[in-house]
């Protein structure tokens, strides 16, 4: 969680409420898109294998390693009038900047070779996702990345509460192999309070709200693409 505690707003502005409704719909759309991705479908149908899990980690790592770069860049793109947002993002960057190491340890605990996962390049979906996030985070005052945070944090929670235990039971691996998946599951209330506060802080005009929602949509599509690539030959 971020170093800065953010109070939950009493209520949201009308625009904030509308944006939250649109973001919820983007999330549900993303989840449906995700359910149709082959590796996730196998997780749902119970045919997900240990090899699937190894491939999942192999394909997630490059984007997780680069994650701290776009978050740091995003922080530096907020000017003095947005110092409050910058503090939140900085705290976030600090929390996340080494979580790829947890992922690597999970891969090794699964019987994988550390050199193999470190040498693995981004897949085309990760490449596109990373490029988009780096581009958006270089824009002045990139509040639109709230949309990216919405999708990526939502997925972190889904991995922790929904995927980790399922993967353990289907592959027979122990909790020492699912630490990365469980990493983002805690502090849910604090996450939500931060999100509610940021919605009102960032979505002060209709076009800013549109930008947040569009960013959530693009990130969701590219994330799904990244996972689809796992089954590409």
């Amino acid at each position: 969680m971020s170093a800065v505690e953010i109070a939950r707003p009493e209520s949201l502005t009308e625009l904030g409420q509308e944006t939250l409704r649109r973001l919820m719909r983007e999330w549900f759309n993303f989840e449906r898109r995700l359910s149709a991705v082959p590796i996730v479908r196998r997780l749902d149908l119970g045919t997900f294998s240990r090899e699937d899990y190894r491939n999942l980690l192999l394909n997630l790592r490059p984007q997780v390693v680069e994650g701290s770069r776009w978050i740091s860049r995003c922080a530096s793109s907020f000017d003095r009038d947005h110092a409050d947002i910058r503090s939140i993002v900085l705290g976030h960057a600090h929390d996340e900047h080494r979580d790829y190491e947890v992922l690597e340890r999970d891969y090794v605990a699964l019987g994988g070779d550390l050199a193999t996962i470190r040498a693995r390049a981004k897949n085309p979906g990760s490449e596109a996702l990373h490029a988009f996030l780096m581009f958006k985070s270089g824009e002045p005052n990139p509040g639109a990345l709230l949309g990216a945070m919405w999708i990526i944090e939502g997925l972190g929670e889904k991995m922790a509460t929904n995927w980790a235990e399922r993967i353990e039971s289907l592959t027979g691996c122990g909790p020492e192999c699912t630490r990365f998946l469980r990493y983002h599951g805690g502090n849910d209330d604090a996450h939500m309070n931060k999100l509610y506060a940021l919605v009102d802080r960032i979505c002060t005009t209709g076009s800013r709200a549109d930008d947040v929602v569009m960013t959530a949509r693009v990130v969701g599509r590219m994330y799904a693409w990244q996972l689809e690539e796992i089954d590409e030959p």
Partner: protein
Amino acid sequence: MNAYITSTGAFLPGPAITNDEMEGILGLVAGKPSRLKARILKANGILTRHYAIDRAHRTTHSNLDMAVAAANNCLDGSPVPARSIGLLSCATTQGDMVIPGFGSMVQAGLGIPGAELFTAHGICSSSAMAVKVAVNSLKLGEHRAALVVVSELASRLFKNTRYEAAGGEDAIDFNSEFLRWMLSDGAGAVLIEGAPRGRCLRVDWMRGFSHANALPVCMGIGAPTDATDKRTWQDFATYAEAEAAGALLIRQDVRLLEHIVKLGVDGALRLIEEGTLDVSGIDHLLCHYSSHHFRGKIADMLDMAGAGIPQEKWYTNLYTRGNTGAASILIMLDEFMREVRPAPGAKILCMVPESGRFNTAYMQLTVVEE
């Protein structure tokens, strides 16, 4: 043209059955009490329900008997005689006969001459499909009165002998036992007319959103216990082989159930976004899903997003009448109309989320006085 629900009816077979009495009727699988029953009942919160089978597993009321009783109960409250019903629109998950369609049997049972017929095929949301066909037909001016009858007889699926034929204790896991402690029997009916009559319910709009393209089957009958066996029940040489393979058991993929709540919310947000639904104007919400599943984080988000419906506006009889699948929403609407007697102007949102392969239907009604 508009459509108005001018009468409602329901039928529940036999006495109310308590949680302690259930297993005595459905039977002990391989002679042993269920280990999952208490947990499943605690989760669904149902206290009493009705069964159309007795302890000896004789059917006391066929699905047709219940449909006819609910239809007659509905028609008893209206001056419209059965013979002037232009369209008979029916739904059930499983008729007594595999074919012909349930509607044909109900028409014969009611003795309605020359009616146009519709039978919806599906699970819980098939009731909404049957209502929508009736509403649309009235709005087109094709008929002046349509009768919708929805009936469910699930208990026959839950006899201990069914599970024993599929392998006994080995066939029972959480997914195959979940619905045994959830579903029960009953029927509901509504009469829908093209003009208002007395105090009645105008159908403002009906919509549905299905997500079968995105998600796997969550509740079904027809697939064998072995998930890697891709055959369905009729692919087996005999029905006995299909049953032995567990292909005739009704199963719920409990892990996928969380999607039901999310998709229910998603559809409502979509209706708000397009301007169809204004939640602040809703006086009563009738939902064919236990309201406690809509609490927690998702309810908090809805409240923050200005899209929540306060708990005091929720009406349900699921806890006392049981979950009767497709019939539930009409049985609920009937009891709601008799018990709450909503005043003219009141707006009622009905919501039917079906887990089968994720279809959610919505209907808004407004109380009007002729």
